[in-house]
């Protein structure tokens, strides 16, 4: 049962993620994508006296999608807590050197660095603000990595190619310039 605890190589994980697309079609003719749930959660919680039309629709038709991400959280719990990998993330040498140069003391010790994720006002401000960009951007683009890069590209949709090019450009900018600047 070692495989349950160990990290999975890309050639196992990638095809499994890819199979989400036909599986969701077979289950109920659904398009695989995650970020729509952020919209549904806003639709559920928006008070009746706030009238943003974008969130005024029957979210109950999308319960299946919310159930899916509840499952994602449970899967994360199983993989990250019950069957947690005791080893650090096996990063490439180049990445380890880059992280040490950025001032991290234990690169890859856990999935996310304590330096950015442990409880502090500074970290939570950073996480919240970046989360705002993720939420705003995914809705503006009409999808995220799952809906555009995987579902969109695999069904040969030009708009998804635009979105993926934008996503990668934004990610490169953040990773090459913003992250080092923030850590310096």
């Amino acid at each position, binding site marked *: 049962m070692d495989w349950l605890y160990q990290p*999975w190589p890309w050639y196992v994980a990638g095809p499994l993620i*890819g199979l989400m697309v036909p599986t969701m079609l077979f289950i109920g003719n659904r398009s695989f994508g995650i970020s729509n749930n952020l919209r549904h959660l806003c639709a559920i919680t928006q008070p009746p006296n706030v009238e943003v039309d974008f969130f005024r629709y029957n979210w109950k038709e999308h319960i299946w999608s919310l159930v899916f991400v509840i499952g994602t959280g449970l899967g*994360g719990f199983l993989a990250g807590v019950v069957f947690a990998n005791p080893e650090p993330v096996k990063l490439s040498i180049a990445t380890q050197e880059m992280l040490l140069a950025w001032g991290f003391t234990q690169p*890859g010790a856990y999935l996310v*660095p304590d330096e950015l994720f442990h409880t502090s006002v500074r970290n939570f401000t950073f996480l919240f603000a970046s989360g705002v960009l993720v939420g705003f951007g995914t809705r*503006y683009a009409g999808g995220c990595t799952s809906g555009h890069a995987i579902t969109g590209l695999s069904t040969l949709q030009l*708009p998804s190619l635009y979105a993926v090019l934008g996503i990668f450009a934004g990610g490169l900018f953040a*990773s090459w310039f913003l992250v080092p600047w923030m850590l310096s």
Partner: protein
Amino acid sequence: MKRYIPYLLVGMVFGFVLIKSEAASWYRIQEMFHFQSFHMFGIMFSAIITALISTQIIKRLGDRKAMDGQPIEIPDKPAGRVSYIAGGVVFGVGWGLIGLCPGPVFALAGTGSIGAIVVLAGALHGTWLYGALKRYLPH
């Protein structure tokens, strides 16, 4: 309720894979954007190829019906360019900063990460902000 069980199970597989593949790792995302390992690119390319082949097969099936009986259709994304590129860039900057896109946010929140829950709270506010500003934005 019974009709939601398949979604719960498939969602669980998805969350399990995201953690086991370390796609929910901030480190792996920095590694990817610096082209220092094939790992994340391998995940993305093999996922796209698998989905491409399987959707092409589905398209060629004569009688394609979902489990609940409705016909399987793959809808086209609405035509456009500006919103896809601009939204993509904004999302990409956020992804590069926190190393978490929406799927991994939910998976990591499931591991009990308070940080992931803060990201989720931010993402909900960002989504609401888009809804409120939608008519002022170029699409």
